[in-house]
């Protein structure tokens, strides 16, 4: 009997109960319901998370324990815009990206390096950045910095154990704020606390669940939560799956049995689905954002929503001045995005949206579109386009504005 026939006979014996006289003896397969494998995987995953949380969150040494109400914060100097105290909170107006420093006024304390900081604020305008600033006694000349974590428009606890500079004796602590918006930021309270397992767990879960929405990087990378995380979920679930598979393989071997494939396949399938459920959640949240931004709008309205309003308005105005038949246009801007994006909107006109510098390539009849362009201006009295290096071209203004315009070369 060939090996194949042996196998078929054995297979018949297993499936149909037909006696397999010459079938080779196989080690028995320990049957396993998928639920058992799933439970084992889940238990292993929870155990891994618990061990990570406990080992990094439990510290016998007391760390920082500071609470400051907004009104207790002391504005540092120099500040271009002085914060104002309103009741218990302190109000910080637009900072034009120059940081405002609010000192906590602490007594020096020693830290084991595992504390967290939390700042209660009003909803933060887009582009606002907060950071914890501190000075160590051993390095008095340097201000150390830890940017605080944000979830959309609010601050969440930021654990400092990942920052190697948060150690030793801390002599001074402050909060730094940069805000490009006119909407003021209200700060209610600042807290520095020692980390605990609960805080570490909450931090990990927040990182995994973080939703940032589509941005320019999305087409290239899917971080799966926050860009930088204490521990990323894929290696963790993979480790849980492999531990279950290896353990059950070893147990089966000791019992002189073969481990059922369920012990390998089910944990991997479960891990995959867990990651995918998280991804699905992100997609659902994204669908909500997309709906809020675009649903019920015309295509032009959706584009207007996506774009810088003044840019889109300008491009629309420029398009309305161009003839229906495609013409030759040179698009330019100090910014790649505006130049290329303007080019995209201008097609099917024959547009050049590369960054070109020599006005000598323009010919009579060509069009020039510029947006956010600092080194070219239109001299109305002479009807000339003037470059900062003195070169000039006669032109007719079709749309004009500061640093922007549509011109036809004469």
């Amino acid at each position, binding site marked *: 009997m060939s*090996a*194949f026939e*042996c*196998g*078929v006979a054995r*297979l*018949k014996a*297993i*499936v149909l109960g037909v006696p397999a006289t010459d*079938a080779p003896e196989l080690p028995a397969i320990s049957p*396993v*319901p*998928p639920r058992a494998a799933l439970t084992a995987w889940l238990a292993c995953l929870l155990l891994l998370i618990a061990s990570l949380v406990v080992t990094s969150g439990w510290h016998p040494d007391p760390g920082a324990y500071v609470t400051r109400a907004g009104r207790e914060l002391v504005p540092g100097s120099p500040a271009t815009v002085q914060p104002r105290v309103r009741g218990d909170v302190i109000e910080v107006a637009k900072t034009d990206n120059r940081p405002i420093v609010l000192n906590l006024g602490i007594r020096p304390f020693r830290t084991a390096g595992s504390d967290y900081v939390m700042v209660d604020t009003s909803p933060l305008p887009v582009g606002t950045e907060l950071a914890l600033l501190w000075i160590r006694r051993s390095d008095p000349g340097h201000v150390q910095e830890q940017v605080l974590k944000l979830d959309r428009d609010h601050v969440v606890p930021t654990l400092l154990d990942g920052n190697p500079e948060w150690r030793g004796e801390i002599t001074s602590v402050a909060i730094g704020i940069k805000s490009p918006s006119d909407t003021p930021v209200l700060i209610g309270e600042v807290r520095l606390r020692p980390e605990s397992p609960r805080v570490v767990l909450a931090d990990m879960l927040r990182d995994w669940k973080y939703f940032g929405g*589509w941005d*320019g*990087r999305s*087409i*290239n*990378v*899917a*971080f*799966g*939560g926050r860009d930088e995380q204490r521990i*990323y979920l*894929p*290696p963790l679930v*993979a480790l849980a*799956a*492999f531990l279950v598979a290896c353990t059950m393989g070893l147990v089966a071997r000791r019992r002189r049995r*073969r481990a*059922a*494939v*369920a012990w390998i*396949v089910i944990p991997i*399938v479960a*891990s*995959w*689905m867990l*990651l*995918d459920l*998280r*991804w*699905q959640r992100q*997609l659902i949240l*994204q*669908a909500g954002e*997309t709906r809020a931004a*675009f649903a019920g709008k015309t*295509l032009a309205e*959706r584009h207007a929503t*996506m774009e810088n309003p003044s840019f889109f308005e300008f491009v629309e105005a420029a398009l309305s001045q161009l003839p229906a038949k495609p013409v030759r246009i040179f698009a330019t801007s100090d910014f790649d995005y505006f130049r*290329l994006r303007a*080019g*995209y909107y201008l*097609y*099917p006109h*024959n547009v*050049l*949206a*590369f960054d070109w510098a020599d006005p000598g390539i323009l010919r009579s009849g060509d069009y020039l579109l510029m947006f956010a362009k600092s080194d070219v201006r239109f001299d109305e009295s002479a009807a000339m386009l003037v470059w900062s290096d003195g070169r000039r071209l006669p032109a007719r203004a079709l749309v004009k504005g500061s640093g922007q315009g549509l011109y036809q070369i004469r």
Partner: protein
Amino acid sequence: MEIFVLGVALLLPWAVGAVWLHALQSGSPRTPLLQPIAYGHLGGILVLTLLMRAMSAIGVRWSFMTLSLILVALLVAGIAIGSRLGHKLKSGDPRPVAHIDPFPWRWLGIMAAILLVFRMGNLAYEVLLQPIYPWDAWTQWATKAKVWSALHTMAPFIDYSQWLARQPGYVDTASHYPATVPLMQAWMSLALGRFDDALINLPWLTLCVALAAGIYAQARALRVAASWAMFITYAALSLPMLDTHVALAGYADLYVGAVFALAVMSLLRWERSREGIQLVYLVISIALLPTLKVPGVVWAATLLLGLLVAAFGRTRGRVAAITLSIAAATAVSVVALFRGKLVSVTGQAQGEVVQPLFDNLFLFDNWHLLWYVLPIALAIGWRDAIHRSRGTSATLVAGFVFLWATFALTRAGNWVADYSTVNRALLHIAPAALVFGAVLVWEWAIRREVVSPIVELPIGDQPYAAASISKPVGP
């Protein structure tokens, strides 16, 4: 009315491809329909874009009506010829049903199907509402579609210096890029009668549906049980990078990845069964790849390598000779066709490559667990990979070598360091690798659960169940 024309634009080329491929298959009423439907999508793209190219070449302006009428004529011809002429190519067992199921978990298939349908709905919502968004989509792909759909012909895209020298033609950031993807967008735009840069991306969604259909159909034809076949399909379509390229449609990478995955499946099937129809699928895919993106030339070459290895590579010497010949021919072609592009990537990457690559493969959620599981699948299924799927393995190995060489030995390594292109490049091969790995796991499981480990599975499509076993095996 708009929904109707959109439906016609999406389904008519697809139907043409499906009907012609079905005509070539066995006419048995039990012939599985899903395969010609899946590959018909690729065939439809090829036919439509060739038609648009041909009309432009002879100076005939496109119109949606003209193109539709030609496609309808092709559809009718396909139906007529199919009913008279069909049954010419061996198309395998009409009952590709697995009788042995080492993973008899019906819940898995049901859950995967539900998640898959939900995912598709979710992605459809994004495609319908989101105007074109990612950078290259509107700097180098849709630019051409916008011009061509407005002019109703393929106006040439020339390089920067030619444009400045006032030669006739347009310019964008990648004038030399292949035309198939923008032609599909232009076709959608012709159907709409306007340039809607959200709706022109609907073909990304239908491509995804075709990919799902193809993976499922081919897995079933490989005698994978329904629940595992559905899980494989779901797993491939659940890859976050793949989903992102549907939701933020406009890049050609999804096309390359989907076509390559379907091609690998047909190669695998051909290796096992020598069905002529699988060769037809493969040829369509190979023809399509170079028209999608520049690296498509190399992907097509890897498939050609796999095909030759599967056909003639019985000894190591032959495999080596075939590999060297294909590598040399590909190198010469690439240098001849894309010398300018090659010059731009010649040199060494400036930044760190290994760490960003590790981050993207193993830490971030770009690929779920694919790169953890694939080595395991290969470790447990290497015998099948070498003995029963030699051609497919050669294709995938060549693909990985290509990616490694690109990132490790050229300046393209910078695109790993800055997280910009690495995942997009991996998207070309990831779905194919996933499906192949999952099939290896399936076959390993059957061997392990049912057949003695010392028994080699026979080459060809002789299944494990020589006996007609109808009862599933397992706990």
